[in-house]
């Protein structure tokens, strides 16, 4: 056996550094990336660790879904680029925050919820309970409806008493 080499010796992550690339928004509202003299139209930004690292370790992909490179952390980019990429992330990861629960009606193992979100009022349908209302840690709750839409309650303790009482029955 020869000397031990780290994994870096065999594979490489292409991290995009702020000085070598430029992000801009197209007039049509799509994200454009200039890097290595290339122009990529309509790039997508995926979170590699949506729960644990959030805005770190982002994968930037071209229209076909091939990875152009990764962003280790957004912090190293200038304000404007950060805003642009955050906007793109917000579009890709559409998870409205539930601010209030008005009503929950249950019928046949389905829950019909009427809620207020930061994106406006919404009616949603969830199936079962335990697979659809998922506590993450002590305070955060993720709700997935039958269509696969996601909603979030970032802090349970911020809910008003009535809403809390309504959701409490689902939190075992």
């Amino acid at each position, binding site marked *: 056996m020869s000397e031990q080499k780290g994994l870096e010796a065999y594979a490489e992550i292409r991290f995009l550094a702020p000085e070598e690339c430029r992000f801009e928004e197209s007039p*049509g509202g799509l994200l454009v990336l200039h890097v290595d003299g290339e122009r990529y139209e309509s790039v997508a930004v995926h979170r590699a660790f949506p729960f644990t690292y959030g805005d770190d370790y982002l994968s930037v992909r071209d229209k076909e879904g091939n990875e152009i490179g990764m962003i280790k952390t957004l912090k190293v980019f200038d304000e404007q680029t950060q805003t642009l990429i955050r906007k793109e992330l917000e579009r890709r990861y559409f998870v409205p925050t539930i601010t209030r629960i008005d009503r929950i009606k249950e019928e046949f*193992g389905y829950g019909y919820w009427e809620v207020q979100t930061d994106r406006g009022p919404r009616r949603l349908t969830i*199936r079962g309970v335990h697979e659809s209302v998922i506590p993450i840690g002590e305070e955060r709750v993720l709700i997935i409806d*039958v269509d696969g839409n996601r909603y979030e309650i970032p802090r349970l303790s911020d809910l008003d008493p009535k809403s809390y009482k309504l959701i409490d029955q689902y939190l075992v």
Partner: protein
Amino acid sequence: MHTTEPIPAQVESLLNAHGVQLPSLHLLLATDMTLTGHYSESWLGVDDKYVYMISPSPSYEQNGRSAGPGASLRFETYPLADIEEVRSVNMMGNGMLVLRTKQTEFVLCRYSNTRAKQLGQFAKIVNKLAKGEALEAEDFEDPRAEVACPKCGQLYPDQNRKVCPKCVDRRSVFLRVLSFVPRYKTQIALILFFMLAGVALNALNPYIQGVILFDEVLAEDGKYHGRLVEMVFVIAGLQLVSLLTSIMHARINAQMTAEVVRDLKVEVYAAMQRLSLGFFTKRQTGSLMTRVNDDAMNLQYFFHDGLPFFIVNCLQIIAIVTVMLRLNWQLALVLLVPAPAIVWFVAKVYPKLWKIFTRRHMKNRALNAVLNDTLTGFRVVKAFGREDAEIDRFEVRNLDVYDVSLAEGRMKAILFPTMSMLMSLGGFVVWALGGAQVLTGALTFGTLMTFINYLGMLYGPLEFMTHIVDWWTHCMNAAQRIFELLDAQSDVPEAANPVRLPAIRGEVEIDNVTFEYEPNKPVLRDINLHIKPGEMIGLVGHSGAGKSTITNLISRLYDVTEGAIRIDGVDVRDASVADLRRQIGMVLQEPYLFQGSIAENIAYAKPDATPEEIILAAMMANAHYFIVNLPDGYDTVIGRRGHNLSGGERQRISIARALLHNPRILILDEATASVDTETERNIQEALERLFEGRTTIAIAHRLSTLRDADRLVVIEKGQIVEVGTHAELVKKRGVYYNLLQKQREALKIGVKIA
């Protein structure tokens, strides 16, 4: 014009104001989201010349309010002539339509997952119109038609589960559950009889031990004064009869319970076998297993505990209250005073206790999951030396269980004493008031004792009644889920008058096939392939290109989304499924062998095969030699606790199985991927015998395996990119050639390492 929802007058008048009349539109539909990601309706329409977009004006979006009536709307048009393509981009929880013209590309609209299907359809129609293609009726097939309840038109809450909660009312489910009753009517009648007898005896007991014993036997002026021995015999006799009834009741009950569960499980299991592969892949196997087991169990409670107990408890409450009222109505009324307090307490506190029960159940399940995980994966744990980490992981879950058990214990410690205290409250009242009445002579001592005994008997049924709602919901949900399975339609239904195909020649025609597992995500696009009888086709391409999907469509494990697959000129959707399956054989990468002997496994598709046939099939599969070498030969039991076979051996058994099945069309999906080269040669030989005279479609990563194929079909990203013989494709220096080069290089590296 097609539309799937009522059009607001405001939208219509805005269209009219721009000179667009509704009838001239091909399609008009709503999305539920604005470009900035707020919930609000926007409308999209398309006619022969333009795409129209009606959306709330920006000021409304910024406020995050939905556009109510009177909100100002923005009207935009995009000429079809400029549009090159509209594509739908699926993201997390939402998607967007991106419109591309010659000059630019922009986001036309966004939509939540709820409307993904409809918007995908819109994109398809616009693309067709932009290309100048004619629209067909099937383009407009209402994506809601299959997902809305045919009775009331309401969308199913869950598109994968076609149950309309509005139309399936609980009463009909209840009636359907009751329809199971006649099957067990003797048992249920007997159970009811013994239960009633038990109730009657129980209700009699306090009376005899109270009024009769104290007032008639022990009291000086009693009717049976002094006949104590006889009295004791009567009481003991009654207890004996009571014991006998409860034994009978329990026995019949146990028997019926077992029967109900058995019958239900068989029905559910048979229903599941009829369903298509899609049904199983959409749901986790685990949840289906729970469904068979737990739901049958839950429904069993209905017959076992629920219905009889409900009837008996109702009767018991009525009987006791009546008796008490008749004995002494004033005292009875006083007694009932604390009853509401108890009911209130139970209704308030018990749900908390149930919640803790559920929580403990969940935590226990999590603990079991860890156990199951590490015990099945113990080789990995040992190999990576992670024993300590696993102990920690277990400890975390274990601690959770401990915590919740502790909470449960504490709660019970408070709850139950409080409860019995509340219950004895009634007793105190009786002692005080009744005692006073006894002193004044208005009440006999026996009646007082009777009262107190009855009181004790009242609380059990009362407590039962407090969770009757819970129990009812539980049972009905379980029943509903079971019926849903019993009623579920296969995604690949047999045609009404299936075309019989007793002996096919093996001609396969794939005609313009598009297939998607999920809306807007085609896995195969515009596949055209004509396979002649007896031809051997090799499907080549990267993993995930859609090769296996093609074979799944040919054997009709799924149905095409668009286009058609014809075997001998007959659309597989019109053909008899049984005929089809009988003549299509599959050998898969991971050969699944069922528990049973090798002979049984080989004869799986032909249970009446003779030993000679089994041996011949094994010989052709190069399996005979190793099988006979096994101590138990063809009777060797495989599977759990059975003999362990190597990958190549299992594979050869599965080939023998396919050989005995003698299909006209043979599908090999990576049949030799998991075996070494020596074994592969062995299997290859066997396969060549298998190919003769049959249409063969083979998928293999090792391209060398497919050299002898009549034609190779190269698939990339769901489309056919190259077709030809090995030699032709090598000459062409295209995709196949590249794949080949890469594999050769990989092989060279392999040699170097060795």
